[in-house]
């Protein structure tokens, strides 16, 4: 009895996979791709029009654009080394090791 039930569940799962995959393929081939998928996807948190700031985390292509953590405003107005030669960002040469 249990085996029979399990076989029915497996059949149900496989037919579901076939049905869902067929729908996904059909949607992909039509212009309604995004609409169909998004309708079942749930609530939207971050959309493609407004990427999260961390989309450039670990990449340098956003450097200077203020959009990611490697160049963002975390140190805004706190850059106490500016112009003092304390760090390499002002173009100063490294002091000679003694």
């Amino acid at each position, binding site marked *: 009895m249990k085996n029979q*039930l*399990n076989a*029915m*569940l*497996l*059949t*149900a*799962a*496989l*037919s*579901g*996979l*076939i*049905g*869902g*995959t*067929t*729908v*996904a*393929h059909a*949607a992909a081939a039509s212009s309604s*791709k*995004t609409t*169909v*998928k*998004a309708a*079942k*996807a*749930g*609530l*939207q*948190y*971050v*959309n*493609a029009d407004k*990427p*999260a*700031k*961390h*989309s450039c*985390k*670990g990449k340098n292509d956003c450097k200077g654009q203020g959009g990611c*953590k*490697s160049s*963002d*405003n*975390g*140190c805004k107005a*706190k*850059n*106490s*080394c500016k112009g*003092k*030669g*304390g*760090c390499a960002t002002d173009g100063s040469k490294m*002091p*000679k*090791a*003694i």
Partner: protein
Amino acid sequence: MTHPTMSLEEIQREMASAVMTPLTADDEMRKESRNGRPMDHVAASFIAPNSRLTSFERLEIYNRQYWYRVLNALGEDFPALRTVIGSRAFDAMSVAYIDAHPNRSFTLRNLGSRLPEFLVANPHFAGRRADLAVDVARIEWAFVEAFDSAEREPLTLEQIATLEGDSHLALQPHLQLVEVEYPVDDLVLKLHKGEERQTTEAGIKHDEDENAPAKLPVLRRKPTWLAAHRVDYSVFYLRLKRGEFHTLRAIRAGQPLAEAIEAGVTTARVPAARRPQLVRQWFTTWAELGWICAPDLDKLVRTA
């Protein structure tokens, strides 16, 4: 003065240790290193002074920039958690967390990966909202994972035709399964969306003290199962039924298909006669969303 016998590696370790030492409450470098050495001696051991700054002051610049950057990075990924526990507690927790789990990755994207477990082990940072805070942190971390984790090719019809009860499947890497004690998903979404408008519109009110935890709608404990995932570069989340959550989790854990189904339906609390229909619905939806993949053969080879 540079220590005559320090190797490059020793200098790097000394500097990393100093730079990663938490700042004082006034955002200054501590006067003593972790091992009790005066920090001005530590600084002088590998940084020369210049005409305007002492060795201590030069090292302090890097110490500050490190902490400003990592604290900012962490706060960016957990805005709802900050609101729930309050800025003051969030800042204290962040310093303790980053001190305990400094970033070991090439990218700050991974900085918050252990924050939920840290909160479980250190509930005092969240006070009376400790359980709620853990749930919020779990959801916010799931959003980070869903945002940029890999996407694989879903199962094809040809692959489905070969499946049997003992077949192993895999889930999309960007699909995140989250089990929480409170239904905080809507709250987190409101708090995130509320960043661009007055938070009172979202039903959340701040005290006069901006550092205090926000006043939140009453939330009753209710086990909730969530999926965070990505569709066309957008992150979505949806609530799952208990049974589908457990089936998906069993698939991810590597259980054979038949066992994974059983793991879910036995928790679904529906009559046996309705289970096939339920299972069919689950797998239809998952396939439409592209959640089910073939096993990651590379992974199997690596772990073999």
